[in-house]
C-alpha cells in the first residue's frame, strides 16, 4: 500500500504538488489541490472514490438544508411571541434532527455496510449455530475505500457543527469537498474540523520559505520515526504475534512493548508527515499527539493520543449523551444516593461505555477491537472509582503525589497498561490476545532474554540499539515540547548553514539507518485501514 513515507509520495507526488501549487495563481491552487487530492484517492482506492463523493454530496445537501431550517427558525423566532418561542425551537430541533439522522444513515450506513457487514454476518451465523438454527447467511466481502472511518467522522462533525450553529453551512460544494478530501488528511487523519481548517485549505497562500523549511523538518522527523523504528521492528512484531505460543511471558511482554513502540512511531510519524505537508503549503492542521507517554493516567493518555478522535468522541458522543435528559435525571438521583463523587460517575460511566464501544468498533470490525475499547473503559472507570481511595491512602501514609518519583511511577504504570491494551489490539483475534495475556502471566520469565531468544526475532543487537537510540531522540524532543520549547522555531532562528546542516543530517540519518532495501518489508500504515 502507498504510504506517506513511500518514494511515490515523497519524491513524486509531493514535489509535483508543491511545484504546481507554487506556479499556479491563487484562485487556481484550490482546484489544483482538489484534483491532486482526488488523484491521490483514486491511486489508492480506484473507483471506490464514489463513496467519498456520495458522502460529500450528502453532507453538503444536509448542511444546506439545516442552514435553511436555521434561517427559517431565526425569522420565525423574531416574529413570534415570547411564549411561542420554545415550541418553535423544539419543532425546528426535531426537523433538524431528522436531517442529521439522514446524514448519519448515509455516512455511517456506507461505513457500516462496507466495513462491518462481514463482521456482523459472521457473528449472526455464529449465533444461529449456537441457537441450533440451520440458517447461515453468506458472508459478503467489500472493498473499502482508504480512510473511510476518518472522513466519515470528519463529515459528520460538519453536520453536527452546522446543527449546533457552530458554523454556517458551506454553500460551495467544491470547498466542502476539498476539506473532506485534502490528501494529507485522507489516510490517517487527523480528523480535522471544518471551522478550523476549511478556510485555510481553500484560501491557500503562496509557499513561504519559513513554512516550507519547518514543514520539511517535520516530514523528515516523521520519516525517521517510521523508517528507522516502525519498519525495523516489523519482522519481530509479525513473528511474535503469530508464533507467540512458542515463547515465554518475557517475549510476549516484549511483543506488547515492541508493537506499542511501532504503533506510536508509525502513527505519530505519519501524522508528522501529514502536518509537515500541510505546513509546507502554509496550512496548519490540528495536532494528533501531545507526548502521550508522559500521561499519568489512562484518561490523560486519551487526551494526548489520537487527540482528534478523542475530541470527536467527547464533543459528538460523550457530551450529547451526558447532557441528555434521561442521564441528567439519573445524575440527580445518583448524586443524592451515592454522593457528589460517585453519583455523577454512574451516569458518566454510561456515556463512557458508549464512547469506548464506539471507539473500539471504529478501530476495526472485530471482537479484539471491542475488547480494546472495553479494556480502556474498565481502566478509566476503575481509575475514577479508586481516585478517592488512592488520595486517602497517600495522605494517610504521607506520600507526596507531586514528587517526580511518584509521577514517574504513574507514567510507567500507564505505559504498561497501554502496552497490554495494544497487545489485544494487535493480536490476530481476541482468543489469541487472551492466550498471549495468559502466557505473559503464567509463564512470566526472563529466560528468553538470557538465552538470546530476543536476538532471533529478525532483529539483531544493533537493531535494538538503533531503536533504543531513536526512542531516546524522540523522548528528548518530546521532553523539550512538553517544557514549551519550540524546537523547529529555535532551529529556524539559527544561521542558514546550521539549518542546511540539520536538513542534510536528517536526510542522511534516514538513508543510513532507515530499514529499507534487502531484508526489510515496510509496514503498511497501521491506521490507514481504519
Amino acid at each position, binding site marked *: 500500500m502507498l504510504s506517506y513515507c513511500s*518514494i511515490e509520495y515523497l519524491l513524486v507526488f509531493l514535489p509535483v504538488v508543491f511545484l504546481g501549487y507554487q506556479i499556479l495563481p491563487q484562485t487556481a491552487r484550490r482546484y489544483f489541490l482538489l484534483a491532486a487530492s482526488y488523484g491521490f484517492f483514486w491511486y489508492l482506492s480506484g473507483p471506490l472514490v464514489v463513496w467519498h463523493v456520495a458522502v460529500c454530496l450528502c453532507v453538503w445537501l444536509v448542511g444546506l438544508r439545516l442552514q435553511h431550517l436555521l434561517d427559517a427558525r431565526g425569522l420565525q423566532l423574531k416574529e413570534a411571541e415570547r411564549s411561542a418561542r420554545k415550541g418553535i425551537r423544539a419543532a425546528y430541533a426535531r426537523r433538524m434532527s431528522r436531517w442529521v439522522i439522514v446524514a448519519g444513515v448515509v455516512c455511517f450506513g456506507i461505513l457500516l455496510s462496507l466495513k462491518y457487514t462481514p463482521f456482523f454476518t459472521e457473528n449472526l451465523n455464529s449465533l444461529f449455530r449456537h441457537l441450533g438454527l440451520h440458517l447461515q447467511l453468506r458472508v459478503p466481502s467489500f472493498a473499502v475505500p482508504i480512510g473511510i472511518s476518518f472522513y466519515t467522522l470528519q463529515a459528520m462533525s460538519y453536520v453536527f457543527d452546522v446543527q449546533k450553529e457552530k458554523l454556517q453551512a458551506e454553500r460551495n460544494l467544491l470547498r466542502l469537498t476539498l476539506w473532506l478530501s485534502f490528501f494529507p488528511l485522507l489516510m490517517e487523519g487527523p480528523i480535522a474540523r471544518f471551522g478550523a481548517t476549511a478556510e485555510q485549505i481553500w484560501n491557500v497562500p503562496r509557499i513561504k520559505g519559513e513554512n516550507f523549511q519547518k514543514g520539511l523538518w517535520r516530514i523528515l522527523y516523521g520519516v525517521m520515526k517510521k523508517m528507522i523504528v516502525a519498519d525495523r521492528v516489523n519482522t519481530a512484531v509479525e513473528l511474535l504475534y503469530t508464533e507467540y505460543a512458542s515463547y515465554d511471558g518475557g517475549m510476549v511482554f516484549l511483543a506488547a512493548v515492541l508493537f506499542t513502540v511501532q504503533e506510536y512511531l508509525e502513527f505519530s510519524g505519519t501524522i508528522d508527515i501529514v502536518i509537515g505537508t500541510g505546513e509546507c503549503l502554509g496550512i496548519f492542521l490540528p495536532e494528533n499527539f501531545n507526548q502521550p507517554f508522559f500521561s499519568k493516567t489512562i484518561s490523560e493518555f486519551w487526551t494526548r493520543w489520537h487527540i482528534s478522535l478523542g475530541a470527536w468522541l467527547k464533543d459528538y458522543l460523550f457530551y450529547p449523551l451526558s447532557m441528555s435528559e434521561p442521564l441528567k435525571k439519573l445524575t440527580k438521583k445518583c448524586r443524592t444516593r451515592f454522593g457528589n463523587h460517585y453519583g455523577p460517575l454512574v451516569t458518566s460511566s454510561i456515556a463512557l461505555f458508549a464512547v469506548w464501544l464506539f471507539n473500539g468498533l471504529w478501530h476495526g470490525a472485530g471482537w479484539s477491537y471491542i475488547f480494546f475499547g472495553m479494556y480502556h473503559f474498565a481502566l478509566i472507570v476503575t481509575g475514577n472509582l479508586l481516585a478517592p481511595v488512592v488520595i486517602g491512602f497517600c495522605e494517610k501514609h504521607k506520600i507526596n503525589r507531586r514528587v517526580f518519583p511518584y509521577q514517574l511511577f504513574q507514567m510507567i504504570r500507564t505505559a504498561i497498561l497501554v502496552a497490554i491494551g495494544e497487545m489485544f489490539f494487535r493480536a490476530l483475534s481476541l482468543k489469541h490476545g487472551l492466550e498471549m495475556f495468559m502466557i505473559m502471566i503464567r509463564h512470566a520469565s526472563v529466560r528468553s532474554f538470557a538465552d538470546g531468544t530476543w536476538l532471533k526475532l529478525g532483529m539483531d543487537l*544493533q537493531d535494538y540499539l538503533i531503536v533504543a537510540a531513536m526512542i531516546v531522540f524522540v523522548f528528548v524532543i518530546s521532553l523539550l515540547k512538553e517544557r514549551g520549547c519550540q524546537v523547529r522555531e529555535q532551529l529556524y532562528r539559527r544561521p542558514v548553514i546550521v*539549518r542546511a546542516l540539520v536538513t*542534510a543530517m536528517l536526510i*542522511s540519518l534516514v*538513508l*543510513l*539507518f532507515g530499514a*529499507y*532495501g534487502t531484508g526489510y518489508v515496510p509496514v503498511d500504515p497501521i491506521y490507514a485501514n481504519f
Partner: protein
Amino acid sequence: MKYLKQILPWFLTLLLLAGMLYLLSILTGPKNNTQEAGHDAWAAYGFEAEAPDSIDMFMLGDSESRTSISPMELFHNEGITSYCCGINSNILCEVDDMLHLVLKEQHPKLIILECNVIFSPFDWKDALETTTARIFPVIRWHNRWKTLTPEDFTSIPDYTSVEVRKGYYHSTYADPAPPFLLDRYMEASEDREPLDGINRWYLKKIAATCRKQGISLVLMSMPSVKNWTSLKHNTCADLAAELDIPFVDLNEMREEIPIDWNLDTRDRGDHLNNDGMKKVCTWLGPWLKEQYALEDHRGDPAYDATWTDMYEEYVEWIS
C-alpha cells in the same frame, strides 16, 4: 538578490547532503570484494580485482547465468577469459548498472545476456534506487553500519580479491526435475511472454551501450525446465530481431547439449549443477571461438597468476 537569498539555503542543503552521502558511501562501502569485508555479491564483483582489459567476455544475468557457465572451464578448454557477473534474483536495471561498472576498466569483445533476467519484474522505484545507489553507494550498503570496523573509518574501497571461480556458482548436488515440469518443458506455442515497458527500455539501453562501445551482445537462455518456456523463447526471438542481435536458446539445443534432467540439475530443474555446466561449456567454448574469434590466452604469462595457476585451486573447489 532576493531570489538568490531564497535559493541559497536549499543549494547549501543539497551541497551538504551530497557531501555527507559521499562520505557515508565511502564509510559503508565494503573495503574489498570479500564476504569478510561485508560484500553481499562478492563473487559477481570479483572482476574488479582482475587486471584491466584482461577479460574478453562477460556473462550478465541472474542465477541462471552463474550456474550454467564456468569461466575457468572455458579458459582451461579454449583459453577464453570470461567472467560471470550473475546475481541471484537480478533485475535488468541492476544488469545495466553492472555493465557500466564492467566498462570502467574492462573492454570485452562479447557480452552474453542470460535471458531469464529479461523477464524479472521491477518498477521505476527499483530503477531509481539502482541509479541513486550508483551515485551514492550508501543507498545500497547502508545496512553495513551494523558491522563497521575501525578499518572502515581509515580505508577506502579497493577490490583486490581475485575470485577463483570467476563468478561461477558450483554445485555437485543432483536433485532431479519432476516429471510434470519435464512434460511441459518447451511445449510448442505461438504465444509471447508479456514484457513490461521498463524491461524493454532497459534491454534497449543495454544493447545501445554495447553497440556504442563496439561490444557484441548475445541473448542466450541457459537450460532450465523450471524457468524457460516457448513463450519466453518467442518474445526473446522478437526482441533479438528488433535489436538486430543474435539469440541463442540452449533449451532448444538438446542434441548439442544433452542435459540429463535427472543428473544435471541441483534443484529440480531450476539450475544446472557442475555436470550440467560442463555440458554447456563443452559446446559453448568452440562456438564462441568460431563465432567471435575470442583469443586463446593459455600460455600467455600475463594470465598465469590469476588464470593458469588458479585452475588447480578451481578444480579443488568444484569437486
